[in-house]
Structures are given as structure tokens and as C-alpha cells.
């Protein structure tokens, strides 16, 4: 008998009985048992109305995607912003960008929970092979280059402590491989969550910078001051920050992680809480980083060409050795968590499009392509970072261009899928969700395109 296609004529009559018979007859995989074990705990605590435990069990993908987006280059970007502009416009601006990120990422929660499919898988099934392979391919390329920048941050962060580059990069690679080979989504998630929470290490650095709390609070109401006013450099920074609010790997990662974790439509509310919590934590860490480097602005230190560890060194006179140490550790953490989440998003997309394993619950024997993608993506990036005279600055610039340019197709497909009532049912976007979703999408796309074009044709930007 041909496999029925959901939504096809006559499928509705067949669905219930067919589904029951298929489910009863289906043999179970090890992946099913592992996921079921996690779901059993969720069901038990839900029925016992143990809400805090339930929240603890269900958080994960949202926090990881938001804190993962506070990656090495992002933290350096926030540090540069603080050194150039101090406390003012960019504090509320950063908060708004994370609000925009929440609007987009919340849609991936509903998509994953309602369809039980990852983002690449849905694009492949609903829009065909070309778009499925395109989505996987451009994600893989963008992710590989982004992973290079993460290993740069890891090398810089640990370099502050005198760790040789090769040792820093190899250690990070081994950690990535080790965590992935736990072969248990729950274990991977909890370890990475434990690492990710250290993104808040920038908060004590901000406190050590002794900011004037009145100025910090006032900036959220006045959106000022803006030293130097609206210049070409300010506009470019604005566009790059807006354009990079959400990057493609975030869409693919969170939706697939929701599926891998086993969330269902009953968990959508907790998925939203998880995503909102992640956005708040990430915004706090980002704003703290801007505040932490404000002493450089106040003392007129030119940080325009600073690389990662340069900030830690330059901050030492103002935040002390402890503060500088925490900053360097934060840089390492930012790169490490992003490396873990980004390499996993590549593996998810690969498995979903090729029809092979796509879960951290997969056994090694049957799931080796999945684990091979994780390991090889991280390994290639690690090797590139260690090549003498490798064009790493060039790669960093190209990554930004690719990330913002790859966003429009990814986010257009997200909107098309989340409005697809055939697959989403009652969880499809309503009018309000579309208002905010499309509005944020248009802003992200235009800012990203503007940034990319100006990066390639800098003379277009008035000085």
C-alpha cells in the first residue's frame, strides 16, 4: 500500500485507524526508548502538577539558542560598542533586538512541537528537493565559517591565560566531541546549559566597571546619549546588529532541538517561557558587556582594532585582574557554547534532508553520519584556525555577510511554514503573530541586505 500523504483527499478517513494500526505494529528504536524516558518524566510531573520541576524539564532549546547567539564575535561586537559609545543608545537597542529574536524564535517552537519535524525536514517535504538541499547547503557553509570565528574566540579567551592556541582549540574540539557522543539529548542539553549560563559572567565584570546606575536606567527611557550623533559608521553598526539579530542556524537549531527533546503541542507554553527566558538572559549578558567596556570609552581608548583578548587586557586597569579574567573566561564560554550548538544545527539539517539519523539519541552504529557531521564541522573549523597566516579576519567579515544574506530565504520559509494550516492546524500564526512576525522579518531582511551591500560597496555609505 502506498504511504498516504497527509492532507491528500481521503487521507482523513484513513488517518485515525491507519495511524493506530501503524503505531501498534511499528518496531521501536533505541532513540524512541530514550526520548520516551524523557517524556515519561514530563508526563509524570505534569500529572502531579509539579510546575517548577516541569519547567526545569522543559527548558533548554530556547535558552541555548539565545545564549548561543551571544557567541564569540557577538560578545566582541558588544564590547566594541561599549568602548565606542558607552552607556546610552545601545542599551535599550540591544533589549529591542532580543525582543525581535523572541518573536522569530517562538515560531520555531510552535513549528517543531506541532509538526514533530525539524526546519530543514519541513522545507524539504513541503517545498521540494531544491529548497531542501539549498537550505542545508547554505546553512552548512555559513555554519562552518561561523565555527571558525567561534574557535578564534576560544583561542583568544584561553590565550589570555597563556594557553597555547593548539591546546585551546584541541581542548575545545574534544569537549565538543565528548558531549555529542553522550548519545543522549538530555545529557547534551544539560551540559551545554551549564556552560551557557556562564554567559552571565559579564554581569560581575559590568559591576566591577562601576557604572553610574542612574545613567544606565536613564538610557532605557531616553535612548541616549549617542556620542557623535548619527554617522555612517553608526548606521552601519545599526544595520549589522539588526541584521544579525537572528541568524539561520538559530531557526534550524531550535526547531530541531524541540523535536529531539520530544516537545509536543502541550508544551508550547513552556517552550515560549524557555525562549523568553533565554532572550532575557542573553539581553542581560549583552547589555552587561556593553557596560563592562564603558571605561574604555570614558578613558578614550581606541578599541576599533581590538581582537578578543585585547579587551580583557585593556580593561584590567579599570576592572581589576579579576574582572579581566572573568571577561576572558566569558569569551571562551561564548565561543564554546556557540561551537556546540552550531555544529549540532548542521548535523540536524543534514540528517533531516538526507533522511538519515537526526537525533542526539541516535546510537553510534546507525547514527554515525549524524555524529560525523558534528565532529567534522568542528574539526575543520579548528584546523583552519590553527593554520599559520590563515585569513581569519577575512573569514570573519565574510561570515557576517553570509549570515545576513542567508537570512531572507530562511525566514521566508519560516513564515510560510508557520502559516501552513495543513501542518500547523490550530497552532498556525494568527493575525497578531503575523503582524509582528512579518514586521520583524521585513526589518531584519532590509537591515541585513543594506549591511551586506555596504560591506561590499563601502563607498555607498555617506560618511
Amino acid at each position: 500500500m502506498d504511504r498516504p500523504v497527509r492532507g491528500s483527499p481521503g487521507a482523513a478517513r484513513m488517518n485515525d485507524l491507519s495511524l493506530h494500526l501503524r503505531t501498534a505494529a511499528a518496531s521501536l528504536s533505541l532513540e524512541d526508548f530514550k526520548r520516551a524516558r524523557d517524556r515519561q518524566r514530563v508526563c509524570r510531573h505534569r500529572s502531579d502538577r509539579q510546575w517548577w520541576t516541569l519547567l526545569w524539564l522543559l527548558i533548554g532549546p530556547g535558552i541555548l539558542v539565545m545564549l548561543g547567539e551571544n557567541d564569540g564575535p557577538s560578545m566582541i561586537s558588544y564590547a566594541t560598542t561599549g568602548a565606542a559609545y558607552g552607556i546610552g543608545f545601545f542599551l535599550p537597542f540591544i533589549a529591542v533586538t532580543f525582543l525581535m529574536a523572541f518573536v522569530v524564535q517562538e515560531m520555531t517552537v510552535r513549528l517543531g512541537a506541532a509538526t514533530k519535524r525539524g526546519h530543514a525536514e519541513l522545507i524539504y517535504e513541503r517545498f521540494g528537493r531544491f529548497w531542501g538541499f539549498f537550505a542545508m547547503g547554505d546553512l552548512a557553509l555559513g555554519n562552518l565559517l561561523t565555527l571558525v570565528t567561534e574557535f578564534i574566540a576560544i583561542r583568544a579567551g584561553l590565550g589570555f591565560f597563556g594557553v597555547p592556541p593548539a591546546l585551546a582549540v584541541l581542548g575545545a574540539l574534544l569537549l565538543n566531541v565528548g558531549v555529542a557522543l553522550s548519545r543522549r539529548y538530555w545529557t547534551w542539553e544539560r551540559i551545554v546549559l551549564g556552560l551557557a549560563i556562564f554567559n552571565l559572567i559579564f554581569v560581575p565584570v559590568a559591576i566591577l566597571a562601576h557604572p553610574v546606575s542612574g545613567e544606565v536606567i536613564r538610557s532605557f527611557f531616553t535612548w541616549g546619549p549617542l556620542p557623535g550623533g548619527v554617522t555612517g559608521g553608526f548606521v552601519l553598526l545599526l544595520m549589522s546588529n539588526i541584521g544579525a539579530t537572528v541568524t539561520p542556524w538559530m531557526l534550524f537549531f531550535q526547531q530541531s532541538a524541540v523535536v529531539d527533546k520530544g516537545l509536543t503541542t502541550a508544551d508550547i507554553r513552556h517552550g515560549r517561557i524557555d525562549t523568553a527566558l533565554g532572550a532575557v538572559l542573553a539581553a542581560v549578558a549583552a547589555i552587561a558587556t556593553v557596560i563592562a567596556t564603558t571605561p574604555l570609552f570614558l578613558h578614550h581608548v581606541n578599541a576599533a582594532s581590538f581582537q578578543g583578548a585585547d579587551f580583557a587586557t585593556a580593561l584590567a586597569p579599570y576592572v581589576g585582574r579579576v574582572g579581566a579574567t572573568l571577561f576572558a573566561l566569558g569569551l571562551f564560554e561564548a565561543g564554546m557554547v556557540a561551537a556546540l550548538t552550531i555544529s549540532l544545527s548542521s548535523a540536524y539539517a543534514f540528517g533531516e534532508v538526507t533522511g538519515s539519523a537526526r537525533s542526539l539519541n541516535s546510537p553510534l552504529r546507525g547514527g554515525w553520519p549524524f555524529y560525523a557531521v558534528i565532529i567534522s564541522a568542528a574539526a575543520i573549523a579548528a584546523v583552519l584556525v590553527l593554520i599559520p597566516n590563515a585569513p581569519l579576519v577575512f573569514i570573519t567579515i565574510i561570515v557576517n555577510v553570509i549570515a545576513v544574506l542567508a537570512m531572507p530565504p530562511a525566514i521566508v520559509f519560516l513564515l510560510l511554514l508557520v502559516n501552513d494550516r495543513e501542518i500547523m492546524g490550530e497552532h498556525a500564526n494568527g493575525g497578531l503573530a503575523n503582524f509582528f512576525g512579518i514586521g520583524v522579518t521585513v526589518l531584519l531582511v532590509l537591515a541585513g541586505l543594506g549591511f551586506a551591500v555596504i560591506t561590499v560597496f563601502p563607498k555607498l555609505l555617506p560618511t
Partner: protein
Amino acid sequence: MTDIGDLGAVDSSESWVREVLEPDQLTTTKIHYGRRMLSRGELVLLWGLRFYVVFMVVIVGLAVWNGLHAAG
């Protein structure tokens, strides 16, 4: 027979798994959704995306070209 050795002590019967997982969560029972029927507007949008992909490749190529020349 399912190898569940690395789960430790666990009930090897399968009924509890089917109770806690939805059918679409089982690895072997997913139904393919099939291609979406596209409206005229969506067709136009996807063709626009195809042109956008060409634009994207050109811009990235130019960025790489500029970067290589700047480095050289």
C-alpha cells in the same frame, strides 16, 4: 529485538513507550507531508527567492573578491 542495554534498568516492554510518545514522534511511523500546493502569490515569492539566491551568490562572490584583493 531492540538493544536497550545502555538505558540501564528499564522496562523492556514497548507499551509504555507508545503511551508517552505521540505517533509522529516514533522514528518509524512518520507520514510524509508531501509537497505544498502553492498559491500564485507563493509561486511568485519562491521565484523571487530564486533570483535572490543568484543575487546572494554574486554579492558573496564580490565580498570574497574584494577581501582577497585587499589581503593581496
